[in-house]
């Protein structure tokens, strides 16, 4: 019998419905993988009983001939940025350690309502700030991947959704939720050889997701196949009156309309994404990607996104500015950590609580954000960044007059060793150079694995689509997936 944990979401869904196995068998298989993978540190909280409860409910519904949800019988991992009713939600911070929400985020609620079960809350960079998962208060996630040739250096699973990426790559769950503010779904997906899609800003409700940067944050799925991403995204998307920025539009049938036939589609290749010194293996994969899409029937055109070089500095003004304000609520007054030194007044309590509750990267971004919003600097930084953001969005609009989608690398390199870039925040921020522009423009973008580099580590490609055109993004990703035939998986060492 095949190992149930090697199955995709679609396989599990269909096999469960066909009666090939019970939902409980699936949940037990994944629970046991989770329990055996402590070395990866992918989970902050494990909830095997939640997975079993959902599985039993699915089995019971099936036995009774009741209608089954789209994800009946499928256990998943939940990034610990989503508030989950009755289950600790920390955003990987000391600040929220022990915080148990009395409410369920809209997106996680939709997944549970569709029959999915929760295997646990996945580790991440603290408050989703980071690209390597090293900023988690609960210790970094370790990628299941290792370089070949006996190099046992612990590698970064990417970030901030590093628990999600590592868990999927290691078969601890068939799919997981992620959130993406500047690349936090796509970069970890690329580092671990899986797929993940950030939908158009507003597709998924942000209600109940611990906020990092409100104008950029978007939830999305991560899984091993494009089809699995389509299945999950359909469940996660939809208008939510509780989120003013949520889009009041029907959710398309992305899975049913999947097609890798790209005839009639034009693929734009933005020249600015090929800077001098681009990693040769990444560049070579990109060229292969162009050929794959041509092979799928697409026409390839060169396009220009002239403001690309300003995307990263723009992002690192806007995101910290919003974060500095969004994180002001963690003050020790109502919930979460409170540090109250002897004889402390209110200001002392704030200082002590926030000094102890936030890690260095979070503090760095709060300080950057506070600085760029402060009197005298606001126009020079924040206002200017908003103007540049509009220009970046305009770049995409103009490019999409000439093409239907864009093909770029996802990240400038394969995974790096933990600790390697920790000392240099700017080097770390450069990880987001290819993912940030689509975030600033609010566009759908997907990471899909393309192959392995010489060290045996996954590298991936990114498809960026027009606003609301997730279908074309998924279809082009599917065309790459079929041609890349990426079947590599990490050797189990944990």
């Amino acid at each position: 019998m095949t190992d149930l944990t090697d199955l995709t979401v679609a396989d599990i869904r269909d096999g469960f419905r066909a009666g090939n196995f019970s939902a409980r068998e699936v949940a037990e298989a994944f629970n046991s993988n989770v329990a055996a993978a402590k070395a990866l540190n992918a989970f902050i909280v494990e909830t095997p009983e939640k997975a079993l409860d959902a599985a039993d409910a699915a089995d019971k519904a099936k036995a009774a001939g009741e209608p089954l949800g789209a994800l009946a019988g499928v256990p998943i991992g939940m990034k610990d940025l989503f508030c989950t009713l009755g289950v600790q939600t920390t955003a990987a911070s000391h600040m929220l350690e022990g915080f148990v929400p009395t409410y369920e985020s809209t997106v996680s609620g939709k997944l549970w309502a569709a029959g999915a079960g929760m295997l646990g809350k996945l580790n991440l960079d603290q408050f989703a700030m980071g690209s390597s998962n090293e900023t988690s208060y609960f210790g970094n996630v370790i990628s299941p991947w290792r370089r070949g040739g006996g190099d046992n250096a612990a590698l970064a699973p990417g970030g901030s959704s590093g628990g999600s990426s590592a868990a999927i790559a290691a078969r601890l769950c068939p799919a997981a939720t992620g959130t993406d503010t500047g690349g936090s779904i796509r970069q970890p997906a690329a580092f671990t050889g899986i797929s993940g899609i950030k939908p158009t800003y507003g597709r998924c409700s942000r209600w109940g997701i611990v906020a990092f940067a409100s104008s950029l944050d978007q939830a999305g799925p991560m899984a091993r196949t494009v089809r699995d991403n389509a299945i999950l995204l359909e469940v996660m998307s939809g208008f939510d009156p509780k989120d003013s920025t949520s889009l009041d539009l029907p959710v398309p049938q992305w899975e049913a309309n999947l097609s890798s036939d790209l005839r009639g589609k034009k693929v734009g290749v933005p020249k600015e994404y090929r800077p001098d010194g681009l990693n040769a293996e990444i560049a070579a994969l990109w060229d292969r990607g162009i050929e794959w899409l041509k092979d799928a029937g697409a026409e390839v055109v060169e396009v220009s996104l002239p403001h690309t070089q300003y995307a990263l500095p723009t992002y690192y003004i806007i995101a910290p500015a919003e974060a500095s304000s969004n994180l002001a609520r963690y003050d020790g007054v109502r919930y979460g950590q409170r540090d109250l030194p002897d004889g402390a007044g209110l200001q002392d309590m704030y200082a002590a609580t926030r000094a102890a509750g936030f890690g260095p990267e979070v503090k760095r971004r709060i300080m950057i954000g506070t600085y760029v919003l402060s009197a005298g600097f606001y126009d020079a930084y924040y206002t200017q960044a908003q103007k540049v953001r509009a220009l970046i969005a305009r770049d995409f609009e103009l490019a999409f007059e000439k093409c239907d989608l864009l093909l770029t690398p996802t990240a400038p390199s394969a995974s790096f060793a933990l600790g390697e870039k920790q000392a240099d925040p700017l080097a770390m921020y450069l990880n987001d150079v290819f993912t940030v522009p689509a975030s600033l423009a609010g566009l759908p973008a997907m990471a899909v694995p393309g192959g392995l580099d010489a060290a045996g580590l996954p590298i991936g490609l990114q498809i960026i689509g027009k606003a609301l055109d997730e279908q074309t993004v998924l279809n082009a990703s599917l065309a790459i997936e079929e041609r890349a035939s990426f079947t590599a998986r990490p050797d189990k060492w944990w």
Partner: protein
Amino acid sequence: MTESTYRIQGATGEWEVVVGLEVHAQVTSNAKLFSGAATAFGAEPNTQVSLVDAAMPGMLPVPNRECIRQAVRTGMAIEAQINKWSRFDRKNYFYADLPQGYQISQLYHPLVGEGQIEIVLDEKNPESSTKTIGIERIHVEQDAGKLMHDQHPTRSYVDLNRSGVALMEIVSKPDMRSPAEAGTYLSKLRTILRYVGSCDGNMDQGSMRADVNVSVRKPGEPFGTRTETKNVNSVRFVMAVVEHEASRQVDVLEAGGTVVQETRLYDPDRNETRSMRSKEDAHDYRYFPDPDLLPLELDDAFLEECRQSLPELPDAKRRRYEQDLGLSAYNAATLTADADTARWFEALLAEGARIQKKSEGEVAKASANWLLSELYGALNRLGKSLEESPVSPEEGAELLALVADGTISGTIAKQVFEIMLETGDKPAKIVDEKGLKQTSDTGAIEAAVDKVLADNAEKVAQYKAGKEALFGFFVGQTMKAMQGKANPQVVNELVRKALG
């Protein structure tokens, strides 16, 4: 437009006061500005708090349509520009009563732009004492919670019931020049808000409070440095703050000092203002557009609905009372000074016109006089408000109709009214049961007149000798003999006739 002559006499000459008010008015709405939580006053602490109000992780604000509607209607009532595109900004600062760590407000693009309010400084001479006060803007924002320091020896408690309640901040231009102008402006603003129904105007419950900006200058000179006295919660206190703060500033300046731009607090017990924090200690609020909210865009249908739903406003009503109903300027001003009085008066008027089959103009004067003297006098005596009046507008109209058609005299009407207050009975029933109907029966009156003249032969002689003032005495005696029920006109005629 009138120029204020209010001046402070200093050692170096006269000083002029310049005042601007920022009024925070709580929007009348069942729910908060960005959450569905209730807004009732006086609820148990922390019982009207949603997850959004407590700023739990991941919670998001959603604008409440009714709050926006009320602010737009208020803007329309002061003839202000309504901005079809506005935006919410975050004002960032840390305080224990501010769960989000920022207040959602509107700095850069307020909902309502420039408008104006007309104030009348002397109700008896409205034409010569009218002044227009400019309004800079109205924006909507969240209120904060409340700290309670008296619940525990070493700790403070936080009540978040008010957290997130919608406020309108109504910012005037520095157009006021005296304590009276500031007080009148605030009263007038409160009247308008109550007419519109966008704020209950209850300053004692904190529904309305004013930040008072005061500066002084020698007449004709540029504006001086201003101070801002926060959260003043009555018209009287606002006037006191202007008076005392202006005097204090004059004293500082005349002693060779400079006025410091600062925030001050008013202490009503000592009737003085005290420094709270200076400009140097001012927060850097780091305003920026709230990324959780889209810009607010209003369509024409919404604006039209807001406009249609506006009631007749006090100035228009006052003019109509004077011009169409023929009331005195003073009565018109008094009756329109608050929406409840005007509502009561108009009900009285409508019912009076209906049962007397007359126009409202024909019954207006008698109705106004009765309401302002008889009814108000009685309510004052009973310590009741108009809403608590034991007599309804319908009953009042019935009473006035009985006077108008000669069924009872004005004197008897006062008696009947007293009985109405006591028993709650209808006037016609009282008149019937107590036999108070006025008589025009000349036979009975003639008999009474004859008896009065016979009993007072000496006075008759005096009258005839030229002491004509005694005429009233004979009328009074006859009325008394008739127990007040005689038609006074008939009595007059018959007395005159009998005296030859």
